[in-house]
């Protein structure tokens, strides 16, 4: 079980959290100007590194707030929230 540090509640068990996938994926400023390919990429393609991933978690069973961490997808080491 991973221990994830919620910025508001501190270190808690992974089972209290909900996974939100890659962080920093902004909604396109003007979707109308995107090509089909660009739109498809926004909808479906996310980073999938073997290594550090910047990702979203929500503290579902706690304060219910969202935050981002850097986590290594091989070692599961979770870096500081930001």
């Amino acid at each position, binding site marked *: *079980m*991973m221990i994830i540090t919620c910025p508001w509640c501190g270190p808690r068990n*992974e*089972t209290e959290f*909900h*996974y939100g*996938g890659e962080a920093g994926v902004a909604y396109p400023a003007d979707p109308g100007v995107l090509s*089909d*390919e660009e739109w*498809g*990429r926004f*909808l*479906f*393609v*996310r980073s*999938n*590194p*073997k290594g550090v*991933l910047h*990702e979203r978690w929500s503290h579902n069973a706690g304060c219910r707030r969202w935050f981002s961490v850097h*986590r290594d*997808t*091989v*070692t*599961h080491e979770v870096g500081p929230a930001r």
Partner: protein
Amino acid sequence: MSWVPEQPDRVWRSAEPKRRYQVVIVGGGGHGLATAYYLARNHGITDVAVLERGWLAGGNMARNTTIIRSNYLWEASAGIYEHALKLWESLEAELGYPILFSQRGVLNLAHSPQEVRDGMRRVQANLLAGVDAQWLDPMEVAEVCPIVNVSPQLRYPVLGATYQPRGGIAKHDYVAWGFARAASDLGVDIIEHCEVTGFDRRDGRVIGVRTTRGEIGAQTVALSAAGHTSVLADMVGLRVPLQSHALQALVSDLLLPVHPTVVMSNAVHVYVSQAHKGELVMGAGIDAHNSYSQRGAVHVIERQLAAAVELFPVFARAHVLRTWGGIVDVSPDASPIVGLTGIEGLMINCGWGTGGFKATPGIGWCYAHTIAHGQPHPLNAPFTLDRFTTGALVDEHGAAAVAH
């Protein structure tokens, strides 16, 4: 319990990498090996190497729970999985190798009125697609599998099930070895401990791979790397819509025969069969987060066992012998991605996620055709990478029985 055939010391010829091949397949799992075999057998293309970074079938091929079925909802899916099932039915004779394919039937349980409606709909769709399918009420479920608890008192009672009598299981490592041996006999080079670390390109075209055992040229490089596809695709700047997750399974100690079929439940998320030697083989769900570590969280196993014991009270006396994980490549519509990549000389086969074992002979057949002709086989044509641009998804996620 049943007899499991002894293995010879050496099943295939181990080869030194040559400087170049007509086709280089990256990944020595079931799909890569089956593809190599059918390239040689169906298309006479024997100048082929299968490169495997670890040992043969050390990826998902020998980590899966070996469930084979073809009762998917959509025509495109039923097409490729039924093609595979037909090949399974004669594969042992084809390969001249024991694979312990056992058509003991697959039950997909329904636990809510919505699942009952979905299951009935899928049975009808399967019948129209030429796939054997039946709808069973709870008493009929108990006849097929007497150890399932069909009491209405359950938290998630069994309200019925779809049944595919031709579904079943096979012995996954023997399947890999059988394909490896047959491909090797036809002249394919199987090269283990050879990791692809980069691609050689000329004028945009892929012309070979860099590996831990030197550079190897190729007319076509065909990826078949399951959970590691994104790592390889990133090396050539190809963006594929995949997320890698850990998926776990476990076996119990050896028991006398208690479980005659395969039972899968989407709602409580457990799927279980009893292997030839007597161990119960059970699969869990994926860990929610991305992962490349071949081990999953214990709480996922705990949840799955709680569900299993409620559904099969006799399992309460069994012991967990071993648990393990594999890295599965999950696509947005839970369907595979097969074919051209937009990069000359590079083909892709991935996205089979939690359910690609059953497809092994079928995808080997179709991917070989795609490589030989430079065009998709009709059965994998719906599964192109560019469906994520056109929007023509094959959405099995909610539609199929369960993911496996």
